[in-house]
Every structure is written in structure tokens, then in C-alpha cells.
């Protein structure tokens, strides 16, 4: 089965203070492994809504979303959670790390619910991932003891730990300096070259040089 996320005629409307707002307007998009997709746009253009729809965090008002060929509108919350756990990894701007867990424990977190990874292999796998991100000396540190770049690399390790096909990153470098921004983009690019499908939404122009495909979002409309 070919892995993909396909969005057809995707419309998302919100009702805000009795005003109807169209966050996504007839969006067509296909995400396949091995590529890095970048969605650019200004704040409020609808790009975060797009990534939430693609990651089953939110639902369409109209249109269809297919993940690996399966139409998702009739899935239960548990089925969506199962797909998110196995197929999708999220990277957020604010990292969202648990402050009372070490770097290693934060990376292990998604594996607690993955029965396909034996419990004795979890630690080993998390250590391997952290090493690949150059964080072997930081894995017993708590988030507050780490720099922003290190925290985001831990968040990316956490997104990858269940070996998902799709990595959805929402402004992943929004809280990082230029040096760490570059490191993160390079990691994401490397992952796409290793066969992951990477979708990054950002308004940062620096990301363009890493993209295989660039989309622009404006007033809910997506264009290449």
C-alpha cells in the first residue's frame, strides 16, 4: 500500500462571534514519503489549521481527507488516535515537553501506548534516537536544563520514536535562534531523504532552500 495523505476540496469554516470565517478554502494537497513540503503564509492565513486537519487533530467542514487510502471522516476518536500514534509525528513551536520528565523519558512517552514496541526495547530505541540527534550527554536532563534547540531536537525525537511516515511540524523554529533553526531544518531535510514525508508550516523564508515543494497559503487558499 502506498503511503500518502490526500486532501480533496478541503474546506474548514469557523464561527467566531457569530461571524463565519473560512480558514481553508477548497484545499487540494497530496503528501507522499521522501519529500519535504513547506507551507508558507502569514499569521492567520490558515496554515496551522491545515496541519491540524492533516494530522487528524481537527475535522473538515467539507471535503475529504485520505490517509494511506482510507477516508477519515467516519473514523472514531480512538481510531484517529491509533493513526496519529502509528503514522503521524507532531513537532510544535513550543516543544510541549513534560517538565517533570527527563529528555529520555519525554522521548519514551509515545511508546507507552505502542504495543508493537516491547517495553524492554523502548529505552534502547529512545537512546538511539537521542544519540542520532547528538543529545546522548543530555538525555538525563530536564527540559528546563536544556537550550531551545536541544528541546526542539528532543521534540523531534519524540515525534519519530514510533517510526511514523509523516512528520507535521508547526513553526518548528519559531522559538529558536538562527543557529538552532539551521540545525532543525537540516534534520528535517535529512529525515525526508531517509523516506519520511515532512510537512512544515512556517512564515520563515529561510526554510525554502530545504523544501522539495513549497506552497503558499493566503486567506485559506493554497497555491504552489
Amino acid at each position, binding site marked *: 500500500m502506498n503511503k500518502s495523505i490526500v486532501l480533496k476540496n478541503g474546506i474548514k469554516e469557523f464561527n467566531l462571534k457569530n461571524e463565519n470565517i473560512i480558514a481553508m478554502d477548497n484545499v487540494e494537497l497530496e503528501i507522499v514519503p521522501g519529500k519535504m513540503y513547506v507551507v508558507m503564509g502569514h499569521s492567520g492565513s490558515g496554515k496551522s489549521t491545515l496541519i*491540524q486537519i492533516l494530522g487528524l487533530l481537527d475535522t473538515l467542514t467539507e471535503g475529504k481527507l485520505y490517509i494511506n487510502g482510507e477516508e477519515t471522516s467516519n473514523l472514531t476518536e480512538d481510531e484517529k488516535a491509533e493513526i496519529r500514534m502509528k503514522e503521524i509525528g507532531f513537532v510544535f513551536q513550543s516543544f510541549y515537553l513534560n517538565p517533570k520528565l527527563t529528555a529520555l523519558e519525554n522521548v519514551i512517552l509515545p511508546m*507507552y501506548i505502542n504495543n508493537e514496541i516491547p517495553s524492554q526495547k523502548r529505552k534502547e530505541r529512545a537512546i538511539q534516537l537521542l544519540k542520532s540527534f547528538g543529545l546522548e550527554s543530555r538525555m538525563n536532563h530536564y527540559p528546563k536544563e536544556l537550550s531551545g534547540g536541544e528541546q526542539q531536537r528532543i521534540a523531534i525525537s*519524540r515525534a519519530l520514536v514510533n517510526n511514523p511516515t509523516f512528520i507535521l511540524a508547526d513553526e518548528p523554529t519559531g522559538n529558536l535562534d538562527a543557529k538552532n533553526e539551521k540545525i532543525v531544518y537540516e534534520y528535517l531535510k535529512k529525515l525526508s531523504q531517509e523516506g519520511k514525508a515532512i510537512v512544515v508550516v512556517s512564515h520563515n523564508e529561510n526554510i525554502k532552500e530545504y523544501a522539495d515543494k513549497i506552497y503558499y497559503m493566503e486567506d485559506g487558499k493554497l497555491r504552489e
Partner: protein
Amino acid sequence: MRVKDYIFLAKSNLSRRKKSVFISCFLIVVSMLVLILSLSFTISMKSAMNKAILKNISYRTIVINGKSKEDIPRIMEDVKSVSNVIKVVSQKEYSYGSSNFYISGKEYNGSINLLGADKDIQPNIIAGREIEKNEKLVCIIPKEFYPYNSTEKYQKDKVIDGESLIGKEIKINYNSYYYKPAESILKNTFSKTFTVIGVYDNEESFSNNNDCYISFDDIYEIQETIENDSEIIDQIVVFPNSVYAIIDSSDNMKKAVEDIQNLGYNATPRSVANIDLINVINVVAILITVVILLIVVVNLVISSIKSINDRSYEIGMLKAIGYKDKNIQNIVFTENLIIGVLSYIITLIFAFILMLIAKYKIVSGNRELEMMNININLIVCLIAFLISTIIPILTAKVSARKALTKTIVQLNKEG
């Protein structure tokens, strides 16, 4: 997800809200301590009183008051026919109090209650033997024999080991008087000597430890001698004119009292266990427990909801990485369960320490309290465990529901 993983995550979450965890634990500990200590205390009291009622002859004796001495034969005849009545005696046969006596030749100016007994009516013997039919001038004494007035301060060093007196003699002196309007003047002193043949457990029967049992006939002879030899000068002296009916079991007391009253007599139980105070203590303790538990519930719900609100983004993140509602609910549930179990363990430790202190500082030396054998009641502990765990489970459900009704987008926005 394994239980171990839930516990690990719950512990890390609890460590982020130490203050509210402490308050919740404190309230649960206080309420459970009130529950365990008060119920254990009152259950011990009730159990001791019930035991006493079963074993103590006084609690199955009905007093029927006659108007005059002449009434007694008729009352006795009537009461004999009442069902569950196993013995009917006149007041003169039932008891006599002595304040001058000799135990193994040593004179005492203390106090002994001589109570009537026969083959069928006597306490359980733990050493020696029972009083046989028609046997006279023998007596049964308490295991811890304290031949002094119970209103005096109890002095342990004056307690005589009842078993050491088996085979020995107790001589009772009793007097007749000239009853004059201003004073009573001693006329003659008589005595009777009894051989100690048996010992009963005064604690088990909740008896005074100066209650000694001799035959009804011996008591009657003592009272009859006093009455016949005394002289009444220019005044009215009322000698005993009541009848005592002894019932087969304390369970039948109420019915027997009613039956005797139905015959037209004024009948009342000789001793009544006053458990009203115990019931009041029980009710007050349960009310206090319920009020504190309500505060616990509200506190747990508020602190759980607050904690969930504070980490909305984290719950949103957990959902984003694939955690199901059930997993998140179980994490909250485990957090509250840890609070409940931890509080319960602390409660038990405190309860045992307080009980030990109570036993050594309050109960020790107080004969009545010692006889109650106050201990932590295991059933109450089990109830406290169920409450300590069920309340956190219910509050977890309420608070988790609030988080789980929100979408991930909402949770992430709130975060």
C-alpha cells in the same frame, strides 16, 4: 499501556502540584482518622457491653417492686409463671453488701457485694468449680479480686489473685441494730464463713471486681437474721420488699418485662446498658467524617480540574501523539488513586500511633476502659480503605471528563 507506566506518569504529574496533593492527603487522613478511631472506639465499647449483657446476671434481672413485705409471696408466685423466667427470688435472697470481712484470716474494712447464685445461675467459672445444687457456705470470687469500694481510686497493688484464694475462707460479719430516730446503734454482730470454690472472669462478664457469688439461701439467712434481730424504736424502717426475676437470656428481657407489667406489677430491668452515648458518638463521628469527605471530594475535583487546565497543552500533546481518552482518564485516575492509597497508609500509621498513645496514656489504669479492650477495628479499616480509594476514583472521572470533552485544538490553544 502498562500499569507501571500509568503509575510513573501519575507520579511525575503529582510532583508538579505538591501543595494541592498535600491538602487532599491531609483532608483524607483527618476524615479517615476520625472515622477509624471513633468507630473502633465505639465498636469496642458496644462489643464489651454486649458481652457484659450476655454474661452478667444483673443485665438479665428484672426488679418487681411490692408495696409491702406481705406482697412478696404472691408476686413471686405470679412471676414464676412468666415465660423465660428461670428463677424468682426475693430481694432478701438476691444481694447483700458487706463492709467488714476477713479474707484468709486478714481483716478488711472494704466492700464486697454478695450476690445470690445457684447451680443454674452463676457466672462462667474459669478455675475451681461451680456451686452445686443446695450447696451452702461456699463462694465464687472474681479472677481479679478487689475487695474495696469501686468509687475509691483503683489501686492495682491491692488486687488479689482470685485463684490463689481457692480453698481459702472468707468470713463475713453482719450486724443487727437498734433503729432509733436519731441514730442506729449496733446490737449484735453475726458471722458466716464461706470457702472459696471457684473463680470467674470479671472482665469478661463486665462485673465489678468485688462481686462474690454465694447461694441464695445464705443471702436470705443473712438478711433474715438482720431483720429479725434488729429492733425498731419509734420510727419506720422499710426492709427489702422487692422481688427479682432472673431471665434465661438478655435477649428476652424486653418481652419478659412487658409480660410482668401485663400482670399489673411495676417491673424494670435491674441494669440497663446505656448505649445512647455510644450511638451519639457514632452519629457525630460519621457526620464529621461525611462533612470532611465532602470537602475532600470538592477539593480533589477542584485540584484535579485545575491541574488539568494547567496542563491543557500537555493533554493536547498527549492526544496529538496518539493517547486515547481512556489513557488520559486512566492517568488522572491513577494520580487520584495514589493520593487515596498514600493517605490511607498515612491514616493507618497515625491511627495505630494514636491508639497506642491512648492505650498507654488514657486507658491504662482505668479499669472500665481496660475492660473494653479498645483496638483498631479491621472492618472499619477496610471501609476506610474503600472510601479512600473510591472517592479519588469518582473525582478522577468527573475531572477527566472536563478535559476529554475538549478538542485537541482547544486544549492546545488553552495551553
